[in-house]
């Protein structure tokens, strides 16, 4: 009798093999993301990094030429194609100028602690690094705001955005930092910047 019970138990143990139907799964990785070319093209744009509603950096390319006054990159003036990449100063000024209505519609915004739109900006390139001078104190600048500035400057200075950026304000200088766009690195971004 006991042997028969044991056999029945073994049979019952086999049953979980046959969880019927389609089961739920966890989130499963499946290859890389979709890499696309976005408009406007690299040559005629400047990349500004705003913050999404949930605090992530979102790149927003703007066609150069309009000085931030246009609202649709696809209708950029034909002459802009010929213009050289915009200067870092102009790019930072555009960032400090805030998102366009279209960008705002997508939820992009500036970190409130960023200096105001009229803040004077100067840029010095030295030995592979860039130093951004702001005519404003860095004291209240949050980490997110600093990342906005660092990434904007880094991608303005080089296409790959790999240069270290030093922020200098009226009240001091921060350690050089690199732009880290890996979204999962967001909480750890301070580790790169605070060296």
């Amino acid at each position, binding site marked *: 009798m006991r042997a028969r019970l044991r056999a029945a138990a073994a049979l019952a143990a086999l049953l979980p093999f046959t969880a019927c139907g389609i089961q739920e799964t*966890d*989130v499963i990785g499946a290859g890389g*993301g979709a*890499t*696309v*070319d976005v408009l406007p093209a690299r040559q005629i744009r400047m990349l500004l990094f705003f913050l*999404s509603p949930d605090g992530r950096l979102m790149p927003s390319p703007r066609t150069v030429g309009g000085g931030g006054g246009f609202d649709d990159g696809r209708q950029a003036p034909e002459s802009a194609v010929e213009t050289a990449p915009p200067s870092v100063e102009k790019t930072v000024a555009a960032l400090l100028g805030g998102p366009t209505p*279209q960008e705002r519609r997508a*939820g992009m915004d500036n970190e409130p602690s960023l200096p105001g739109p009229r803040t004077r900006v100067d840029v010095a390139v030295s030995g592979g690094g860039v130093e951004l001078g702001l005519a404003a104190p860095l004291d209240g600048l949050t980490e997110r705001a600093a990342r906005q500035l660092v990434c904007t400057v880094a991608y303005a200075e080089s296409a790959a955005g790999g240069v270290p950026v030093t922020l200098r304000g009226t009240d001091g200088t921060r350690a050089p930092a690199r732009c880290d766009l890996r979204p999962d690195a967001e909480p750890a971004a301070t580790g790169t910047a605070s060296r």
Partner: protein
Amino acid sequence: MTAARGRLRRIVPFGLRTRLVLAFLLVAAVSAGTTAALTYREARNAVLVSAQDTAVASFREQVETLAPSLPVDPEILREYLYVLASKAKPHPWIVFAEYGSLRVSSSTRPTSSVITPGLRRTALTRSHSSFERVVKDGVPYLTIAVPVLTRTGAGDSMPTGLVLYAVMRMSDEQASVDALVTAARDGALPGLAIALVPALLAARGVLRPVRELREAARSMGSGRLDARIKVSGRDELADLARTFNESAAELERSVDELQQAEARARRFASDVSHELRTPLAGMLAVTEVLDEDADGLDPDTARAVRLISAETGKLAVLVEDLMEISRFDARAAELNSDEVDAAETIRKTLLHRHWNDRVRTELPDGIRARLDPRRFDVVVANLVGNALRHGSEPVTVRLGTRTAADGTALLVTEVTDGGPGIRPDVLPHIFDRFYKADAARTRSAGSGLGLAITQENVRLHGGTVRAGNGPGGGAVLTVEIPLGGPIGTDGSGTDGSGTDAAAGAGHAPGAGKGATA
């Protein structure tokens, strides 16, 4: 009766057949179940993996054909999503886009309730695609998240913040998987049913020899020693059958030899007693004459003559008893039953032996019983004679009736004496032939066969005789005979003391008829 029971095929709850069939079914169920389950698992996974891989690859491929302008315009994005939705593969899907705070979809609702926060978080924080299977309200959905990246330089890319989701119902896959379950079940159940056939065949193959063996054993038990089993095959059961046959043959031979030896011995005893009877008759006649003339002889010669006369008489009794026993052994003893008054029969016995003044009686009149008067006389005479010889007075004969446990009315005859009783070590042997209770007292008046003959006579009546000691210390010998006479004359009481021999009288029909209260 026994044969009918042998034919009867009972279904024993956990008999050999049930166990064999269960074992077969269990094996079949386990193997069919395991096979079906494993096959089902593999097939299901194959179906799902194929659909998922196709969907993920084709969705990513189609997303890569886009060239959105950033920041995306919701209206233009919606147009994109319509295009993506139209190229769904392998099944229709709904495409959702999330960009910052924008939520756009190819359906009427901008967001999906199927997309889990986990998938959303993975899509936003990792730069690789991912998918998740979600079951909502019993419907399985495949949700795919593809984050859109853009090139920043040679081989470098960065997330644009745009994530596209595809939500696809897996109804076809579910139908396929359900079909697999049905197929597995439809395959396994007939398999189980088919497994019953070999199970029953195997059970039959085992049970038939076992049944034959049982019947053969039973017929051997009931005395047919020539019962044999047909041996077929070379398996263990055939070995068992062969061994049984050999043992049966051996047993038959030994029993045969024993019976022959016993028959020879009986015939010898019978022949001897017959041969002795004729000369003894002559001797008795001579000793009677000598006895009469003994008074005229001188005293020594007279004593010798009287001794010879007495011993010759004893010898004659012994020879008579031996012949009686021989008749019992040869089963030649016959019962000449007659309906008699038991008390009257006993009184006659005591009167003929001139014992009526030495024996107290308690003989209620009116007890009628079917008896062989001659044999009953021998029984009573032996018991009373025994009590007078070995016990001491007062010797009492009581008559009564009793109803046995099975309802048979019994005539109870009890002979008690006032002696010291029978020693416990002697009790079991008291009905043995030539058994002497006192080894030193080799010479006694009796032939040594009296109680044995009593027992045989009682058995012939279908009754029992018991020996015991009464509360006062005297020996008590009790004879119980069915009032209605014996039913089976096969003398089933076989144990020496006869204590349980009543079984032979157990099936008297209408047994209660003769019972008196």
